[in-house]
């Protein structure tokens, strides 16, 4: 029998809890309001995606990548398509590349909107969450135009995109680009620079650059710690090297570099940059095919690749081993949130229960990606 430490109380948070963003379970040892240790328990959404990949053909697995990180389905589609294309060694038409970038960046915005909204509702302000959803609905409409789905798109396929964009999509996107930037100012006025919000997040759960690297933290969380590392810039894929955009890094505006507020603010800055990228892509548009010639029965040459792409939550990597058949021999999914969550026990010694909610919210984890 386990020895019970009487100084601490065991508190079970989740898997059904309003602020664990899904089915995360945290076992907390607390001394009153102060948390002494947190043990995350994951796997409540383990759907065996890696096993499924081994039993399905390459194109069949694309829809499952939608369900990997459902807030950024396009980005997941993209990373998977890039992986398979790397082994296939095929050229992607220019128009398809532009479309992919547009979709990926729009999806980044909509994903960050949820991150923004869910953190705000974790902090007790429910209204910004609904404002975020309001703008997200706009993007959902755009995606619905191109592929008919609101959440799980299966739009970016191996070799290109599923179909060309419909009439009016460009105009609607431009409309969105005019509509969206003023809203960011609204978010900042309402939430980002709210004194209570800053007080709740500044200097909370500071991730030092060393820790971030040790735990493999990536994406906005890594950049908030002051490390300028964005795969769109470091290992450019598609046509990101032609695009002009900034990579925001944490500057410790309200507290120390790498605190929860910095992590939150990275998302706000990145939304601006993504809007900028989409605008450039629209100007670059040109006629052409939307998908390269891909055989009906896709036999991928034998080989091993690890391909990674910058997702809203960080580095999504696929490690693919092909034995030359129609099915992957092994597909390992390197999910950003998995690494981002693994740092939680380290961050949460000595914080308060309310801070724990802020930590989880500011890391912007998503469970299906962690559990796969």
């Amino acid at each position, binding site marked *: 029998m386990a020895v019970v430490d009487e100084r601490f109380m065991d508190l079970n948070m989740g898997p059904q809890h309003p602020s664990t963003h899904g089915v995360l379970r945290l076992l907390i040892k607390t001394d009153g309001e102060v948390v002494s240790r947190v043990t995350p328990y994951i796997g409540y959404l383990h759907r065996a995606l890696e096993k499924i990949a081994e039993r399905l053909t390459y194109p069949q697995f694309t829809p499952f990548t939608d369900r990997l990180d459902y807030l950024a389905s396009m980005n997941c589609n993209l990373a998977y398509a890039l992986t398979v294309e790397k082994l296939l060694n095929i050229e992607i038409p220019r128009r398809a590349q532009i479309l992919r970038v547009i979709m990926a960046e729009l999806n980044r915005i909509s994903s960050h909107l949820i991150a923004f909204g869910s953190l705000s509702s*974790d902090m*007790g302000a*429910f209204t910004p969450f609904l404002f975020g959803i*309001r703008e997200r609905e706009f993007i959902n409409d755009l995606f619905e135009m191109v592929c008919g789905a609101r959440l799980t798109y299966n739009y970016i396929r191996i070799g290109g995109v599923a179909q060309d964009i419909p009439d009016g999509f460009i105009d609607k996107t431009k409309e969105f680009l005019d509509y969206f930037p003023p809203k960011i100012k609204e978010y900042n006025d309402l*939430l980002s620079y709210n004194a209570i919000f800053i*007080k709740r997040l500044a200097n909370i759960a500071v991730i030092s650059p060393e820790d971030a690297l040790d735990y493999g933290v990536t994406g906005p969380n890594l950049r908030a710690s002051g490390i300028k590392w964005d795969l769109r810039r470091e290992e450019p894929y598609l046509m990101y090297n032609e695009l002009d955009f900034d990579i925001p890094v944490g500057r410790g505006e309200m507290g120390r570099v790498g605190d929860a507020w910095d992590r939150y603010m990275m998302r706000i800055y990145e939304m601006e940059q993504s809007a900028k990228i989409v605008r450039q892509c629209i100007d670059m548009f040109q006629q052409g095919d939307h998908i390269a010639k891909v055989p009906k029965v896709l036999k991928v040459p034998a080989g091993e690749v690890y391909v990674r792409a910058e997702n809203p939550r960080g580095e999504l990597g696929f490690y693919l081993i092909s034995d030359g058949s129609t099915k992957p021999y092994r597909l390992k999914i390197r999910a950003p949130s998995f690494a981002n969550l693994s740092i939680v026990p380290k961050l949460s010694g000595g914080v308060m229960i309310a801070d724990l*909610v802020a930590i989880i919210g500011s890391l912007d984890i998503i469970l299906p990606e962690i559990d796969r």
Partner: protein
Amino acid sequence: MIELINNIIGNIHSSTPMIRWLVYVMVIVISSVIVLSFALLYEGFATYAERKVAGDIQARIGPNRVGPYGLLQFVADGVKLLLKEDIIPFYADKWLFIIAPYIVFTASFAAFVPLSYSDHVYVANMNVGVLYIIAVSSVVSMAILMGAWGSNNKWSLFGGMRAVAQIVSYEIPIILSLLAAIIIPSSLDMKDIILYQSGGLGIFRWIIFNNPFTLLAFFIYFTAAIAEVNRTPFDIPEAESELVAGYHTEYTGMRFAFFFMAEYGDMFIVSAIAATLFFGGWQIPFINGVAMPLWLRETLQVVVFLTKIFVLIYVMMWIRWTLPRLRVDQLMELCWKYLTPIAFFDLIGASVWVLLFNGKGVYDILSALFVH
């Protein structure tokens, strides 16, 4: 109406003790029923109003399907809650668990008694009215702790502990700021306080405009009052994203409804105190009511009084749907480091003012200057 009953009691003073006793009981029962039905009706509409206000702020509509404009929403909610299964958790402390909601509700309901709705409409005119309300509403914290402890749920316990700490702490700035207002009319009697504020076009002799210290006292009072009724940004006892539902996590059906109604009842009470002590109670602004028929004047006074209360309640709702919530230690910091010292200073200032100007307010002094 109350006047009428008082008259009857006056007339029967000569009759036998038996009849007198019976009449007293009858009076108590009737007035309780009147106040209770008023309170329930108000609480119903308050929940409806809250949802509508929230909808308005959050770019939604709010209830509109249940009855015209969704007005019957609270009826449906109430009846449904009545029909729910009454669960008493197996490990609960049964008696504490059962009586806690009733005590909460009784305490908030009892505070309706000394309020003066108009010149003649009131239940009981006590010479310790303000003190009585403060005393009675303090019981709430005890009952919340009973419920929280009785639930035998860790989240509830957290909520209960937080609630008690918060309510007990914030009572100090509340009382100090009320004292700063009370020393102007030098009475604890609600009616005396309101009568003191007559004249000055029905506005300028309000205690809030009496001197700078009372103005400050109002803001201290209102801030602390929001904390007293556990609403955002001070809603940490039932912080949804942290404590699931706080102290009423385990309560179902009608028992939960009592907690819920008590919250709205408390909102009414704190707003009523603010309206009485700072905003002239039922004094009608800009209209001289002396010439009016009695019924019209009384009705107008009730309407004016309720309007003042509802404006304050609306402000509370507005704040709730705008601000994030504080952390528990920041909440205590706000109380003990800021509000309490300022309230002390304010009380001293107000006392000095009363000494210096012989109890006269700014309006009195200025008008005296202009007359001479």
